[in-house]
C-alpha cells in the first residue's frame, strides 16, 4: 500500500512535469512527434533509475559518514554527468539497436533537471533504497505519460488553424496549461 501510494502520487498527483515543473526543456523541445517522445521517455526511465540508485548510495555511504552533505549538489551532478557518459559508451558497445533508439537523447539528459531533481527529492523525503527506486521509476513513468500525451496533442495542433501570433511555442504552452489543469483533477487522491 505504501509503494502504491508513492507510485500513484508520483505519476498522477504530483506529476513531475505538469505539477513540479521539472524537465520542461525536453517536454517542450522534443515533443513534436510521438515517436521521439517515446524514445526520450525510454532514455529518461533508464538514466533516472540508475542515477537515483547511484546518488542514493553516494549520499548514504559517502556524504553522510564524512559529514559533507553540503556537497550534495556538486557530487550529484558529477555522478549524473559521468553516468550518462558511461551509459552511452556501454550501450554503444553492448546493444547497438538500443543505442540507435536512445543515443541522440542521452547527451541531452545531463542537463535535464528532472534527473537531478528526482535524486534531490529522494533525499529530502528520506526514502530507503527500495522506496527510492520505486519513486524514481514512477516519476520516469509520469514524465513519459505527460510527454507522450503532450506530443499527441501537438501533432493535432499542427493541423489546427491557430491565430498567427500564437503559433508555435505560445499555443504549446497554453495547451500544456490545460493538460496541467486536467492533472489537477487527481489532487487529493493519495
Amino acid at each position, binding site marked *: 500500500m505504501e509503494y502504491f501510494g508513492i507510485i500513484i502520487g508520483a505519476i498522477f498527483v504530483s506529476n513531475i512535469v505538469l505539477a513540479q515543473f521539472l524537465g520542461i526543456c525536453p517536454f517542450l523541445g522534443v515533443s513534436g512527434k510521438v515517436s521521439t517522445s517515446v524514445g526520450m521517455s525510454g532514455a529518461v526511465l533508464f538514466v533516472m533509475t540508475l542515477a537515483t540508485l547511484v546518488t542514493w548510495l553516494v549520499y548514504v555511504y559517502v556524504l553522510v559518514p564524512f559529514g559533507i552533505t553540503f556537497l550534495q*549538489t556538486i557530487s550529484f551532478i558529477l555522478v549524473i*554527468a559521468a553516468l550518462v557518459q558511461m551509459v552511452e559508451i556501454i550501450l554503444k558497445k553492448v546493444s547497438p539497436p538500443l543505442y540507435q533508439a536512445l543515443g541522440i537523447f542521452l547527451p541531452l539528459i545531463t542537463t535535464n533537471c528532472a534527473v537531478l531533481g528526482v535524486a534531490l527529492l529522494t533525499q529530502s523525503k528520506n526514502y530507503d533504497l527500495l522506496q527510492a527506486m520505486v519513486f524514481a521509476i514512477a516519476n520516469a513513468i509520469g514524465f513519459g505519460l505527460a510527454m507522450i500525451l503532450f506530443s499527441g496533442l501537438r501533432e493535432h495542433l499542427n493541423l489546427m488553424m491557430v491565430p498567427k501570433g500564437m503559433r508555435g511555442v505560445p499555443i504549446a504552452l497554453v495547451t500544456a496549461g*490545460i493538460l496541467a489543469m486536467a492533472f489537477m483533477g487527481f489532487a487529493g487522491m493519495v
Partner: protein
Amino acid sequence: MNQWQNFTKGFIKENAVFVLLLGLCPTLAVTSSAINGLGMGLATTFVLVASNMVVTSVKSFIPDKVRIPSFIVIIASFVTIVELVMQAYTPTLFDTLGIFIPLIVVNCLVLGRAEGFASKQSFLSSMIDGLGMGLGFTFALTLLGSVREMLGNGSIFDVKFATGDAILIFILQPGAFIVLGYLIALINKLRKTT
C-alpha cells in the same frame, strides 16, 4: 558590438525566457508571486556572473574534451555558495524556492552562456554578458510573477490592491503555462513591430 548593447541584449532582444526559451523549469515553478521570481532571478544572476568570470579566466587551461564537465563543476561550486548563503540569510525564501536553488546547476541558461559566450570572449565582455542576461532573466521572472500574483491573488509584491475573490488558477500550476504562453506571444509581437 559595444558593451552597452552587450548588456542590454538580455532584456528583450535575446531574453533568456521569452526568446531563447532557456531555463524554463525555474521560470514556471517559482513565479507564483513577484517576490519569488525576483529572488530566483537574482540568485541565478549571481551564479551566471560569477561562473562567466571564472570560465573566461580559466578557458586557456582547460582541455577541449573535458570542457563541459569542468564548466559544470565551476557552476555547481557557485550554486553551493548561493545555497548556503540563502539558507543562512533568507531562510523563508530558501524554503519557498526549495529544490530549484540546487537546480540552478542544470539551468541551461548558465551552462549555455559559459559554453557559448564566456569560453570565447574577454573577461569584461563575459562579465557584462552575464550581468545583462541574468538581469534579463530576473526581469522575465519578475514580470511573470507579477502578472500571476495580480491575477491570482489580487496583489503585487505582497501589497494587496484588490479585495474579493481572485482567479486562483493563475497561481496554481496551469496558470504558469498559460501566462507564459501569452507573454511570449506578446513579446514576439513587440519584437516584430520595433
